[in-house]
C-alpha cells in the first residue's frame, strides 16, 4: 500500500486499534474461587446517596424495626434512587459515616443493628414482567432502587426510560470488566447466567429494543461459555467476545468495538439507537421483577497481594470494609486500600467505610503492588497520546492545568476525558496526569456552581431593588391619597359649616323678621 493510500485509510478509519493499554490483569485466582457469602455483620451502615443525583430522603425513625428489603429512604428529585434495608433489625442511628470516596469526607447513613434473622419483608407475589407496559416495568425497577452496577451508579429506570424515548434498537450489555484485579461481573456471569439473560429480556421489553448484544472480554472464556449456553434459546440475544484491553468496559469503547461506529464527543450512544447497561444491572433487574427483591446486596471482588483468600463475595449494602477484610483474612498489613479497580477506584482512608451499590471490589495492595514513584519532568515521549482511548493530548492538557490555564485544557478536549488513567499508567516520568484532569474537572464544576450562585444573587438583588422602589412608590401614593382625602374632608366640613352658618343666618334673619313682624 502506498503512503497516500495509508494516509487516506487513516483519515477514513481513524488511527484504529491504537488506544488503551494492556495491564497485567491479575484476575486469577480470585476469579476462579467459588462465590462466598459474607456472614451477616452486627451493624450495617447504609448511605443515603449511593447513586448519581440527589440523596434519598429517610422515611424511617431511630428505634424503628425494619425488615430486609423495606424502604429506608425514598428518591427525591428527578435523578435519585430508593434505598432499602439490607437486613432485618432495628434502626439505631441516622448519622454520618466516611463515604467510599477519595475525599474521605462523611456522608449521611442509616445504621441498622441486625437481629440476625435476616427476614425479608412480605411482598405481593411477582407478576409476569412481560404482561406489564414498558413504563410500569421501569417503574418497578425504579422502586427497587436499581442503579447501574458498572460503577457510575446512574438510576437504571431513568436510563431505560431514556432508551424508550430515544427509540433504541439495540441493547448492549457490558460484561467487559476491563479493570485489572476485578472479577465480580465474571463471577456473576458464570454463576447467574440464566438470571442475567432473564434480566436482559425484561430490559428489552422495557426499552422496546429488538436485540441485545453481550460484550465480554476474551480473557473470560468461562463467562463467555456460560452466557452463550444460557442465551442459546433466545435468538434476539447474542454473546460477542471482544479483545481484552483497558478500557474496553467504557460505554463508548465497547459500543465502538461491537458496532464499528463511534459516538460523537458531545453525544450519547442513545443518539445512535443503542443503550448500554452493565450485566450486574441485568441481574438486579431480574431480582427486582421476578422476586420483588430490591437491590440490597452485590458481588464484591476481594483481591490484592495482602489478602489471604482472594475471591468474590456476596456482601449486603452497608457492610463495612473491615467486616469484609476480617472475613477474607489479611496476610499482611496492606500498603494501600482501594475500593473499585486499581485504575479508576478510590483510595480508602481507613476500613470503616461501607460497601455501596457501586462497589465492585475491595483491593488490599502490598507495598510492591502499590509502588509509588516521584514524578519527573515530561520528556515529551507521547506515550500518553498513543494510550489515550479518546484521542486527546494528555501531556499538553496537563501542562495547561499545571499553569492554571483550565480553559486551555478545555480547548484541548478536557471534557471528553473519561479519567480512565491510561495516560498515568504509561507515563515513564510517573506524572499524575489523570490527577490533573480530575482536579481541573472539579475546579471547572466549582466555577460553574459559583457562576450560578452569582447569577442567582444578582436576580435576588434586582428583585429587592424593585420591591423597595415599589414600596416607596406605594407609600407615596398612599400618602398622597390620604392627603387628598383629608383635604376633601376638610373641604366638605368647611362647606357643611358654611352651609350651617348660612342656614343659621337665614334662620336668625327669619326669626328676627318674625319678631319684627
Amino acid at each position: 500500500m502506498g503512503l497516500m493510500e495509508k494516509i487516506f485509510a487513516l483519515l477514513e478509519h481513524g488511527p484504529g486499534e491504537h488506544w488503551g493499554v494492556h495491564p497485567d490483569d491479575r484476575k486469577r485466582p480470585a476469579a476462579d474461587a467459588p462465590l462466598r457469602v459474607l456472614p451477616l455483620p452486627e451493624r450495617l451502615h447504609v448511605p443515603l446517596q449511593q447513586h448519581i443525583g440527589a440523596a434519598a430522603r429517610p422515611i424511617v425513625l431511630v428505634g424503628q424495626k425494619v425488615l430486609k428489603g423495606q424502604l429506608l429512604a425514598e428518591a427525591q428529585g428527578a435523578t435519585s434512587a430508593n434505598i432499602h434495608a439490607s437486613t432485618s433489625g432495628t434502626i439505631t442511628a441516622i448519622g454520618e459515616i466516611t463515604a467510599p470516596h477519595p475525599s474521605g469526607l462523611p456522608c449521611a447513613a442509616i445504621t441498622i443493628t441486625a437481629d440476625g434473622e435476616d427476614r425479608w419483608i412480605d411482598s405481593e407475589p411477582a407478576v409476569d414482567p412481560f404482561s406489564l407496559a414498558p413504563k410500569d416495568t421501569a417503574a418497578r425497577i425504579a422502586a427497587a432502587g436499581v442503579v447501574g452496577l458498572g460503577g457510575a451508579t446512574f438510576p437504571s429506570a431513568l436510563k431505560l426510560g431514556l432508551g424508550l424515548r430515544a427509540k433504541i434498537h439495540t441493547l448492549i450489555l457490558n460484561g467487559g470488566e476491563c479493570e485489572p484485579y476485578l472479577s465480580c461481573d465474571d463471577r456473576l456471569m458464570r454463576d447467574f447466567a440464566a438470571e442475567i439473560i432473564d434480566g436482559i429480556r425484561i430490559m428489552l421489553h422495557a426499552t422496546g429494543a429488538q436485540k441485545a448484544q453481550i460484550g465480554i472480554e476474551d480473557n473470560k472464556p468461562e463467562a463467555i461459555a456460560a452466557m452463550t449456553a444460557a442465551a442459546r434459546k433466545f435468538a434476539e440475544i447474542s454473546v460477542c467476545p471482544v479483545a481484552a484491553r483497558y478500557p474496553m468496559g467504557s460505554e463508548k469503547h465497547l459500543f465502538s468495538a461491537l458496532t464499528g461506529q463511534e459516538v460523537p464527543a458531545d453525544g450519547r450512544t442513545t443518539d445512535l439507537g443503542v443503550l448500554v447497561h452493565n450485566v450486574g444491572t441485568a441481574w438486579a433487574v431480574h431480582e427486582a421483577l421476578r422476586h420483588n427483591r430490591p437491590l440490597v446486596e452485590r458481588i464484591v471482588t476481594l483481591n490484592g497481594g495482602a489478602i489471604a483468600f482472594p475471591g468474590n463475595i456476596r456482601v449486603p449494602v452497608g457492610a463495612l470494609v473491615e467486616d469484609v477484610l476480617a472475613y477474607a483474612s489479611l496476610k499482611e498489613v496492606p500498603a494501600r486500600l482501594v475500593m473499585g479497580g486499581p485504575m479508576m477506584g478510590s483510595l480508602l482512608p481507613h476500613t470503616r467505610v461501607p460497601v455501596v451499590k457501586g462497589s465492585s471490589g475491595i483491593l488490599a495492595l502490598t507495598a510492591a503492588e502499590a509502588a509509588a514513584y516521584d514524578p519527573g519532568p515530561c520528556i515529551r515521549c507521547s506515550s500518553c497520546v498513543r494510550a489515550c482511548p479518546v484521542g486527546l493530548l494528555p501531556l499538553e492538557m496537563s501542562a495547561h492545568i499545571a499553569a492554571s490555564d483550565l480553559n486551555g485544557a478545555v480547548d484541548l478536549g478536557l471534557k471528553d476525558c473519561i479519567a480512565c488513567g491510561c495516560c498515568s499508567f504509561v507515563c515513564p516520568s510517573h506524572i499524575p496526569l489523570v490527577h490533573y484532569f480530575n482536579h481541573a474537572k472539579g475546579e471547572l464544576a466549582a466555577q460553574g456552581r459559583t457562576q450560578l450562585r452569582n447569577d442567582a444573587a444578582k436576580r435576588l438583588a434586582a428583585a429587592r431593588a424593585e420591591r423597595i422602589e415599589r414600596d416607596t412608590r406605594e407609600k407615596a401614593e398612599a400618602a398622597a391619597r390620604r392627603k387628598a382625602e383629608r383635604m376633601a374632608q376638610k373641604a366638605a366640613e368647611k362647606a357643611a359649616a358654611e352651609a350651617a352658618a348660612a342656614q343659621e343666618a337665614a334662620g336668625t334673619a327669619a326669626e328676627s323678621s318674625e319678631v319684627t313682624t
Partner: protein
Amino acid sequence: MIAAILSLSLLGLILGFGLGFAAKKFAVETDARVAELEALMPGTNCGQCGFPGCSGAAAALADGKASPTVCPPGGKALIQALAAKLGVSVDLSGVADEGPKIAAIEEEICIGCCRCLKDCPTDAIVGAAKQIHAVMREACTGCEACVDRCPTGAITMDPVPITLQHWVWPKPLSEGAKAWA
C-alpha cells in the same frame, strides 16, 4: 398640499441633521467596558470592595485602579471572567480563596429586631419583629453587610462546609518543582 409635504420634509431633514450633529458633537464619552464589567459583577452592591457598589467597582476596574481580585463574593470564577474581559493575566494560585463564607445567626442571642434583614442585599435573612431570624444559606452571598448591624453580635460568618458534592481534587504538586528541588 405639495407645499406642506415639501416644507415638512425639509423641516425633518434639517432637524435630523441637527440632531445627528449634536449627537456627534456633544457625545458623552463612556467606557463601553464599564457596562460589560458591571454585568459580570454580582450586582448586590455589598461594598466589600471599597467602591460605591458594583458599578463603582466596574468603573475602577476599567480605569485600572482595581485588580480583578477586587470582589470577594465573586470568587475565582469572577476573577477569571474579569481578567479575560480586561485582557490581563492573573495568577490564581496566589489568590487566597479561603473558601466562601456565609452568615449564621446564633439563635440564643437574636432578639428579633429586624435590622439585619433590612440590610441584606439578597433578602437572604427571614424573620419578623420579636421572632428569631434565620439565614437562607442558598441565598447568602457572604457580603457581611448584616454583621455590624446586629445589636447583640449574634451574626457570625461561618465557612461553607466542604461536602462530597463540593469537594475538588487538589492540584498535584508540579513535577518540575519536585524533580529539581
